């Protein structure tokens, strides 16, 4: 690949006629730092749905015994699609059956949740298509996946979009510690990893409840899910030198961080900048010790102090540097690049703009390659940009991404979607891309395909692809072939 092609494809979301040619590839990328808009109109105009989250969690709480509602809530997370032919009927029937028999208020809430989720997915993709800073959009999606939440968990549907829009986007060129606090303590994450119902065993609320003889309907106590994932996935990483005791201590410090508008303790909630609420009544009192450092009692601030230290930990620098390098420079990232990024992260105190500049400056990131197989999301966005698509209806976007196997905010685990070719370069995936490419090509302008191919992969268009494009029987077929060419599949 030529440097110009690397700037477009490895760092960004591929070529779009609007962006022009990257004559100076490094400057082409650095300029995007200024061009990036953390809150473009579609995101800024998104209505606040936070109240709906509280209502939904309250519905779930009231229906704890009636697990039918739980199921319906879980199924409501499944992406809604206008193109019914593109969806399994069984799933739809199951969803319909789950909705049947629910009181209207619940049903309406579920339908509302599905619509909001589909709209947010549409906003994510259309924002990327229109963005003057595709490389920074890639950073958004990288970090969103690092702090992965899944709408498979009931109650998260209204929050998954806002999690990315408000806890990730504003920080991708800011400080890691700020993003960490915003993302981990956002309602979406607090719900997804069960933090919102974690209660300190010695918290005033638990003590009072024990006196009353307990309440079977209420969540039981400390939940370590979020604390474990913060250490293992978000900061230090596996083998980052923490022990189970650190997980438990962090979990204790996190008690009290919950979601606004729920429960009997809700009226004691203090709203937090992340969108979360802090309820001192359920916070475990006392001094905490994490990784050998002591944290005085400090209610909401205790967890913030621990997160700040975790963000600055050398193991975190190593973990982040490795993932960042893997995303841009290959499944097995060059050790020299990891070392550069790690050193920069430590020196700058987790300044993510500096980290990105270091990546752009690193010779390893410009290896001739290609070094990565495009994920389904990357491939779809690059295809839409290449065909000049400016915006698509949300339902079509959701349908396409679902068929490709990478609907946003639906990764199978808190580790996020895999960032490895092995997970995506499958036979079935190739067939689906070919099928979708033919469909996209049918609805796109089909003229000048060869010129577009040369602009998309400047100095990097292979002879085999060029030959096939020239032989194609129509502009439409040539465009479909270009969309599935080896040059499009990898970056």
């Amino acid at each position, binding site marked *: 690949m030529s440097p110009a092609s690397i700037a477009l494809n490895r760092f960004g979301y591929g070529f779009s006629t609007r962006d022009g040619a990257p004559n100076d590839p490094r400057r082409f990328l650095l300029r995007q730092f200024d061009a990036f808009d953390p809150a473009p109109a579609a995101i800024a105009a998104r209505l606040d749905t936070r109240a709906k989250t509280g209502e939904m969690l309250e519905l779930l709480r009231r229906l704890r*015994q*009636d*697990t*039918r509602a*739980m*199921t319906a809530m*879980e199924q409501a997370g499944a992406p809604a699609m206008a193109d019914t*032919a*593109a*969806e*399994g*009927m*069984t*799933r739809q029937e*199951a969803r319909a*059956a*789950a909705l049947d*028999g629910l009181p209207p208020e619940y049903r309406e809430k579920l339908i509302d949740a599905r619509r909001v989720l589909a709209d947010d997915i549409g906003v994510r993709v259309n924002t990327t298509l229109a963005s003057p800073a595709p490389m920074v959009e890639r950073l958004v999606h990288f970090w969103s996946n690092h702090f992965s939440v899944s709408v*498979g*968990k009931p109650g998260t549907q209204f929050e998954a979009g806002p999690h990315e829009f408000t806890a990730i986007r504003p920080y991708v060129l800011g400080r890691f510690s700020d993003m960490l606090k915003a993302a981990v303590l956002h309602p979406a994450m607090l719900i997804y990893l069960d933090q919102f119902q974690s209660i300190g065993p010695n918290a005033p609320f638990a003590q009072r409840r024990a006196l009353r003889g307990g309440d079977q309907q209420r969540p039981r106590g400390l939940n370590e*899910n979020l604390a*474990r*994932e913060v250490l293992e996935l978000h900061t230090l990483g596996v083998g980052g030198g923490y022990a189970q005791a650190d997980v438990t201590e962090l979990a204790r410090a996190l008690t009290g961080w919950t979601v606004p508008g729920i429960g009997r303790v809700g009226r004691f909630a203090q709203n937090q900048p992340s969108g979360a609420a802090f309820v001192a009544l359920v916070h475990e009192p006392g001094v905490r010790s994490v990784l050998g450092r002591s944290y005085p009692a400090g209610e909401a601030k205790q967890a913030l102090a621990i997160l700040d230290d975790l963000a600055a930990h050398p193991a975190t620098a190593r973990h982040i540097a490795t993932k960042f390098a893997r995303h841009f420079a290959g499944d097995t990232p060059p050790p020299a690049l990891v070392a550069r990024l790690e050193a920069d992260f430590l020196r700058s105190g987790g300044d993510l703009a500096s980290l990105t500049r270091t990546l752009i400056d690193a010779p390893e990131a410009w290896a001739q390659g290609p070094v990565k*197989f495009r994920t389904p999301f990357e491939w779809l966005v690059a295809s839409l940009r290449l065909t000049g698509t400016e915006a698509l209806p949300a339902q079509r976007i959701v349908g396409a991404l679902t*068929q490709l*196997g990478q609907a946003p905010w639906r990764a*199978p*685990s*808190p*580790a996020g979607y*895999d960032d490895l070719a*092995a*997970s995506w*370069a*499958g*036979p*079935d995936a*190739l*067939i*689906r891309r*070919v*099928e*979708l*490419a*033919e*469909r996209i090509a049918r609805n796109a302008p089909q003229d000048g395909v060869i010129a577009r191919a040369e602009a998309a992969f400047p100095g990097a268009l292979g002879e*085999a*692809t060029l030959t*096939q494009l020239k*032989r*194609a*029987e129509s502009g439409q*077929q040539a465009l*479909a*072939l270009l969309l*599935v*060419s*080896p040059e499009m*599949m990898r970056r």
Partner: protein
Amino acid sequence: MTTSLDRRSLLAGSLVLGAGSLALPRIAFAQGAGSRNLLFVLLRGAADGLAMLAPVGDPGFEALRGASLADYENAPRIGSFFAIHPALAEIAKSAQAGEALFVHAAATAYRERSHFDGQNLIETGGTAPYATKDGWLNRLAVLMNEGAPAPLRALAIAQAVPLALRGSAPVSNYAPSALPQASEDLLARVSQLYAADSELGPLWSRALETKAMAGDDTMRNLNDARAAGELAASLMRDAGGARIGMIELGGWDTHANQRGAFARSARQLDALLAAYKAGMGAGWADTMVVVATEFGRTAKLNGTGGTDHGTASAALVMGGAVRGGRVVADWPGLAEAQLYEGRDLAPTTALESVLAGAVAEHLRLDPVRAMAQLFPGRDAAPLSGIVRG
């Protein structure tokens, strides 16, 4: 068809194990698996074990499930104690032929009642949700690939590779696409486009092969269970086919009107397995099917004729070499005091032991090592005596 309750085989199995692992060195690890096939069927949504295999001989059953008792009047029996749901007619035939074995009152280590977490656990094989990042079936493939000249083919018949099959061993997946089929001309041109590409070329050949093996695909999805079973067999029966397969079935979350809903899902499972067995032909002798679900359902019917999320359920092991026609269970009883938390069938057998024991015996792996790799951190020993010796 032997005894109604084969508690002894369960207990004996665990007693023999210490000696068994010493007696097993003749089985070289991961060797001789040859062309043995394993299909794992995950019933998503918590299938009701008490409906699948009704303990009609338990005096507590009528009180809990009186409303559905009539369903089992003429249902096939295993001994006098258990009746197989009438919608599972083909599975019952396999049981009568001695090729299908039920394990009852089995559950994973999970004791909460969320599908989301329960499925995470039965797929990862971990002891806590999200504690383990890869799937136990993938770790099984890793074991099988040790020292093998080439990695075996592991295939999910699903649109995305399920968590159980995710991990470091290479896996593939296939599902009929709802997208309009690409034109033959485009497919042929893509073959030329990828011909010289060392990564895409082989992947594309496999894709076309799988597509061809799957036959002329009139399916848009995997909703026709019989067709899905045939598809699974077509992808596994040939020498070059997949050795480990996985398929998922939904529709088990029967919170209301369970009689109809369960029968519908059971018919799907029955049709899928019958079609798969028929499709495997002579290969059935070397094939094992393991069917499991994330957890069971409440013992008592609820106010809407359904059941809610519970704990223990039943599992099914089928295959040409399975020592079937039996139920393996340490039956906990259905009296109120015997129910888990006063509401669920109590778990007396670790589902992990069933899964590890079944696949280890079938694939000629050291069961102790298989247990340790697939389901680390468990006290329970792998179940033995599943395959005819």
